[in-house]
């Protein structure tokens, strides 16, 4: 266990209240993370199918990750960690912001879930390898993308599964994610910098360079009748699996 100072960090009462409020804000389906909440079942559906295919599991089981370890990088307040824990995984969540991690801890405690949350840079935490490694909507915020992807690959256990999602760099994503979504207040201003977005081809190159093979990406699209849903249209946002070559 690498970073003991993080795990044992003691939180003063007024800070606890602050993190509780922050967690409530993150977890409010109508609050500033509304978009993430709507996205969650969609990407979970993809992840669930990937899990069932990868480990040839029972598609009806409610604990398909029983006995498996999972690492979510860029975990925020735990919107993905908590479902993974309910699916049976031993979950570790990592986020660069100490505040997010404290909020995530406060929420998991309320949900009665044991999740190991760490804050800091993934590379410096000395974590081991995991059966499932996920990182949703993070790579577009990262400066050295190859170092980031290689870091994720280093934490993937042999026979493990990785799932990444990120916005595509297209005119459609620029108009919608950066323009309209911010104007509508669906995502906080400054959340996205379009130039930093990665195309599916670029992501594949990064993953291959890290010694991984890549599955067929799925798009996450929006329509007035279906809302957000998985599709073959990768223009806005996409999600993809990877495993060791």
């Amino acid at each position, binding site marked *: 266990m690498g970073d003991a100072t993080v795990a044992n960090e003691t939180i003063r009462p007024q800070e606890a209240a602050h993190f509780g409020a922050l967690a409530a804000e993150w977890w409010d389906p109508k609050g500033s993370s509304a978009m993430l909440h709507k996205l969650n079942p969609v990407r*979970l*559906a993809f992840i669930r199918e990937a899990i069932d295919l990868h480990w040839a599991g029972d598609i009806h089981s*409610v604990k398909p990750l029983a006995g498996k370890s999972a690492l979510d990088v860029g975990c925020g307040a735990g919107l993905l960690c908590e*479902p993974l824990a309910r*699916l049976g995984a031993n979950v570790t969540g990592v986020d660069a912001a100490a505040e997010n991690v404290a909020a995530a801890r406060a929420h998991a405690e*309320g949900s009665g879930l044991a999740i190991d949350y760490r804050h800091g840079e993934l590379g410096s935490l000395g974590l081991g390898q995991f059966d499932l490694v996920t990182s949703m909507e993070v790579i577009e915020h990262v400066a050295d993308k190859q170092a980031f992807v290689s870091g994720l690959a280093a934490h993937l256990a042999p026979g493990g599964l990785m799932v990444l999602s990120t916005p595509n760099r297209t005119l459609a994503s620029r108009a919608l994610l950066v323009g309209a979504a911010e104007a509508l207040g669906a995502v906080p201003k400054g959340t996205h910098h379009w130039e930093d977005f990665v195309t599916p081809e670029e992501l594949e190159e990064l993953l291959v360079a890290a010694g991984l093979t890549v599955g067929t990406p799925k798009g996450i699209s929006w329509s007035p009748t279906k809302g957000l849903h998985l599709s073959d249209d990768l223009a806005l946002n996409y999600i993809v699996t990877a495993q060791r070559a």
Partner: protein
Amino acid sequence: MSDKRDLLILGGGLVGMTLAIAAAKKGISSHVVDRADPAELTAEGFDGRASAISTASWNLFRNIDIADALEPFGCPIASIAVTDGMKPGRIDFQPEEHEGTLGRMFPNRRLRLALFEAAQGEDLISYRPKTNVLTRHRGDHGVTAMLADETVLEASLMVGAEGRLSPTREEAGITMAHWDYSHRAMIVGLTHSKPHENVAWEIFYPAGPFALLPLLDDEDGSHRSALVWTVAEKDAAGVLAMPRSMFRAEVAKRMHGVLGEIELQGDISAYPLSFQHTVQITGDRLALVGDAAHGMHPIAGQGLNLGLRDVGALVEVMSEAARLGLDFGDAQMLARYQKWRALDSLMVMGATDGLTRLFGIPGKLPSAIRRLGMGMVQRTPPLKRWFMDEARGVSGEVPELLKG
């Protein structure tokens, strides 16, 4: 100490109890709280009503393994005859050979007995009858209800299933559009000399609809049907005060001998009729099912069927939540339930409401319009098709549990 379950179902009537059983079949646990005494509810003569169970609802009963126990008590409806006060012009809703029956008639008492028995054998159901709820709370991480004896029940999602006066719905501030028909349904069993040949009659009189629903023959072989006679609120007291022989004569007069000689069987009960609707059937960690979500006129026999479709949709949405690792109170899942149900219940209620309004106005002209209206339904295949599908509950996007 804490026995936190997935669902806290308030109201264990026909819909609430079916929900608990259907959820249990999917591994979802529940507390069920009802203020009534099941022994009273299933006593002979307590609820003389019979319900039409559509093909879709029957599929649900099959899928939750209570169909076998119910089968011997169901009377199949082969066709529905709709007439305007017995004037010429009768619509017969008759399914094609391969489409099966329009539904089956069951005494409510039998439905309750089958549900209670199935619930008793389920570890995932913790049933508390004769219990009053003092306070309800819906929080960030779960819901609780405090009972009269100060026991606190805990769960992830609260379900309001207390019927049309649901206090859970009221407390959540969900208001219903309400239309009072100012009518009362008189319910009584009939025995009759001619067999009903599995025909359900809906006879529309200016004063309100009159329905005869076929039941299985008695042990002694006498033929039976359930009568639902709708009278105006202002006449209800008078009708209820009639001596039985007079009531019988009034009923016979309206039946024109279609079933031969008739006798009344059991007590006469009366239910006020109203139509209630709300688009909002969810709140934070809250879902409404059954009459709590939509009250409607019983003439088209869809109230219970609609409630059972709520059950199918909610259980499907919840099993999906479980498969994705989402909390049972997840707002996105509840939004899906609400969207799924809103359109369906509005369609059924609109049709039922339209039917009675069409038939509820006295006078020559409306009668002519009514005959024309029926002729239209008869002549317009898509509409008729829709009515039939609706009666059988197979239109719209049907929840998995209600598929055959």
